[in-house]
């Protein structure tokens, strides 16, 4: 088993190297010249050339790439050509906001998806199952950007129940805390007002982001529960008159969520990518809005760093899932 894990992890190395090469070559070839934009509105061509030299943008691509590799090894992503700030610092500053949003969405997806899946399975082939099936397929069919705008329109603009944008209100002064997770920090420092404010800001983005996940988890839970319900022990327990509700919600569920758990792992990766759209609509100060902004302004160092980071998270989740599958089904071990 250890050999399998080691092999699987080693196999990721060429993938990651490929990832580095692809993203680097691709993004470095973006026609928008960061040097020209950097030089500003009234710049002369000579000024642009000077800036290009200053940032090493005039070196051959392989040289730039090798330099980039050695920088990445030291976790140095360079300075953003726009803000002149170290990209690594911006990422570290913004990562907690994205993680907070992603975890909240993951929590919502699990907390709603599992019960809904069980309800669908218990009503197998009756109308709640049918409705939930349409709804869960619809959840995957929703354009995130559209539902985000619809939520804004209804809950923030028309009803004025929830904030429209951002992560906290302006009037709130709060220095932040050790974790970077606003709600957690507020609790740690006993600031209930900040906590509540942060919570209200989180509701709409997290709900938007979670919809696809709710649908996915509902479907997997439903399938898992249906599977387990037909197992011998359930038939036996039923026959001896074990309380039905306890049987379903405790024993059947425990045996059927295993499949959903790997699904939740995979979901994490897709949520981080989905955050790109959600964050830019809700002005959420995380990595997603940072990425969209970088793409719109051709800030290639930021684009490289974020693509790499998300790629690594993807790869890690993939390895983890493969290992879990390997644990469950030993036959897969020699295939990897």
């Amino acid at each position, binding site marked *: 088993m250890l050999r399998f894990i080691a092999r699987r992890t080693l196999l990721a190395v060429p993938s990651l190297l490929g990832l580095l090469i692809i993203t680097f070559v691709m993004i470095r070839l973006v026609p928008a010249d960061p040097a020209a934009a950097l030089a500003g509105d009234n710049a002369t061509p000579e*000024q642009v050339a000077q800036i290009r030299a200053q940032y090493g943008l005039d070196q051959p691509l392989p040289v730039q790439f090798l330099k980039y590799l050695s920088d990445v090894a030291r976790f140095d992503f360079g300075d953003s050509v726009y803000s002149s700030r170290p990209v690594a610092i911006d990422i570290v500053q913004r990562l907690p906001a994205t993680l907070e949003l992603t975890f909240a969405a993951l929590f919502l997806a699990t907390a709603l998806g599992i019960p809904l899946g069980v309800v669908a399975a218990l009503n197998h082939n009756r109308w709640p199952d049918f409705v939930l099936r349409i709804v869960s397929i619809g959840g995957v069919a929703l354009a995130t950007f559209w539902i985000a705008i619809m939520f804004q329109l209804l809950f923030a603009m028309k009803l004025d129940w929830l904030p429209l944008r951002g992560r906290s209100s302006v*009037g709130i002064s709060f220095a932040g805390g050790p974790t970077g997770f606003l709600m957690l920090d507020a609790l740690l420092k006993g600031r209930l007002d900040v906590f509540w404010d942060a919570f209200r800001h989180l509701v709409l983005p997290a709900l938007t982001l979670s919809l696809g996940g709710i649908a996915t988890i509902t479907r997997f839970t439903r399938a898992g529960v249906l599977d387990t319900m037909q197992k011998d022990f359930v038939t036996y327990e039923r026959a001896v008159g074990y309380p039905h509700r306890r049987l379903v919600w405790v024993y059947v569920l425990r045996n059927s969520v295993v499949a959903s758990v790997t699904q939740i792992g995979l979901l994490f990766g897709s949520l981080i990518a989905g955050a790109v759209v959600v964050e830019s609509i809700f002005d959420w100060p995380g990595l997603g809005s940072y990425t969209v902004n970088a793409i719109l302004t051709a800030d290639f160092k930021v684009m490289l760093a974020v693509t790499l980071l998300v790629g690594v998270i993807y790869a890690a989740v993939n390895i983890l899932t493969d290992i879990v599958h390997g644990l469950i089904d030993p036959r897969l071990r020699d295939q990897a």
Partner: protein
Amino acid sequence: MTLTRREAGVLSIAALIAATAGAKAATPGVMVRSDNQPLNLDPHQVFDVPMMGYSLNAYDTLYRYLDNPPKLTPWIAESHTSSEDGLIWDFKIRPGVKFHDGSDLTAADVVWSFQRVLKIARAPAAAFRPILTAEQITAPDPSTVRFTLSRPYGPFLAAIPIVAIVNPRVLKANEKNDDWGASWLASNEAGSGAYKLDAASYAPNEKYEMNRWDGHWYGWKDNPKPVQKIASRTVKETSTGVLGLLNGSIDMTDSYLPTDQVEQISASKVARVEKNVSARTFIIRMNNSKAPFDNINARKCFAHAFNYKGFIEDILKGYAERDPTPMPTTLWGFPKDVKGYEYDLDKARDYFKKAMAEGAPMRRPIQIHIQNTLEQTNQAAQLFQSDLAQIGVNLRIVNDTWANMTTNTAKPETSPDMWVHWVSTYFADPENWVGQMYDSQFHGTWKASSWFKNAEVDELLRKARGLVKQEERAPLYEQATRLIVEQSPDIFIYNTVELKGVSNRLSTMRFCPVGSGTEMRWVQMTS
């Protein structure tokens, strides 16, 4: 059973959320701006409209533009003198001006600031590099700064207010790799302005906060109810900013308010729209180096096919002033007698035929590039597209970014066929518009991206640049502008009426086109 219990839970949470909604009363003394942020906070690295919104508050300048039309006013320089030949300029520094760290602002600091601009060689340097090197800036005594120009340069004084004076002592302490403190100043502040940056609050492209500084040299006697704190928030979607304005969580929007929002704000009791005729011209560029735009009849065909009146009156609801030239209507050097071109599809068809007869490929697909974050560029292009379709011109709209376009306009072959942009006031001098847009020596910069070349215009503009007196320069610029309009190198649409949503808590907004009315020290605020 389970379902209903969950439903009840969801409902009670919703009720709880609804109950606490509306608890967003504006905070006394804190003014919230929803505005774009500069790329970074160093005024010598970045120079654009969002930067002016920051630097006018954090930094002082030798002279400053105030009011509308902009008036050049002594600021930390009390006065200036210039030699008869226009080569030597002396500025007298006001005594008693202090930086935020408490140290005195001296002539040597001003010299160092200008040298830093030239050394860093970013945007604000362009106006000075042709006529000034670091050695040509000196301080003959502690209260005098002397500039010795290489040759006479008309726009020199007009460009003086674009250089912010920075504190060399603070920057030298934070210097690394001889960068003149550039990487530190990108997220910090070293100025003497009326407001002091709270550097801890700065998150790039998201927010920054500034606190009023009591020690500002101008004093605060003129303003009994100043804004105590400026909180700037980047709101990417204008409609979001407008809603914030209406519910009291935002006090001031940017100055690109879409006209469709004006009515909504005007109808509210808490906010209003400030309307100011500015100096910001809206233009559709044509690449004169490419067919069919190398043909004057083709260019006139396009100039007659834009629905100026429909665009200004129906889409902009009248909040713009038709401007048939590249010059702002309010500035000296604007030729009042120029008629320009009007919307007339029959005339456009005539010019179309003439151009075709001369071999211009009028039926080739033409690409117009718009700026994807600025909806108005898109609306103008779409309107143009539907009119051109009627006379048989196929216009294709390409979504583009500012960064991409300023790159592509470096060469005639990569410059788009057409593109849409504004020319804002960076300094209030005709040089900012016609001078840098149509003198062929600026080819390769975005401002000169129509690749227009006309010997007579070149000569007029160069002559005007070498003169110092406004009354001598004005007729030259007027004549050059007339010639340019006659040649129709671009499509000149309007001079902007800046629209800014403002909370009724704010008064005495002292609007100036330079900076779009974002200098906050004049603003009074009730709580």
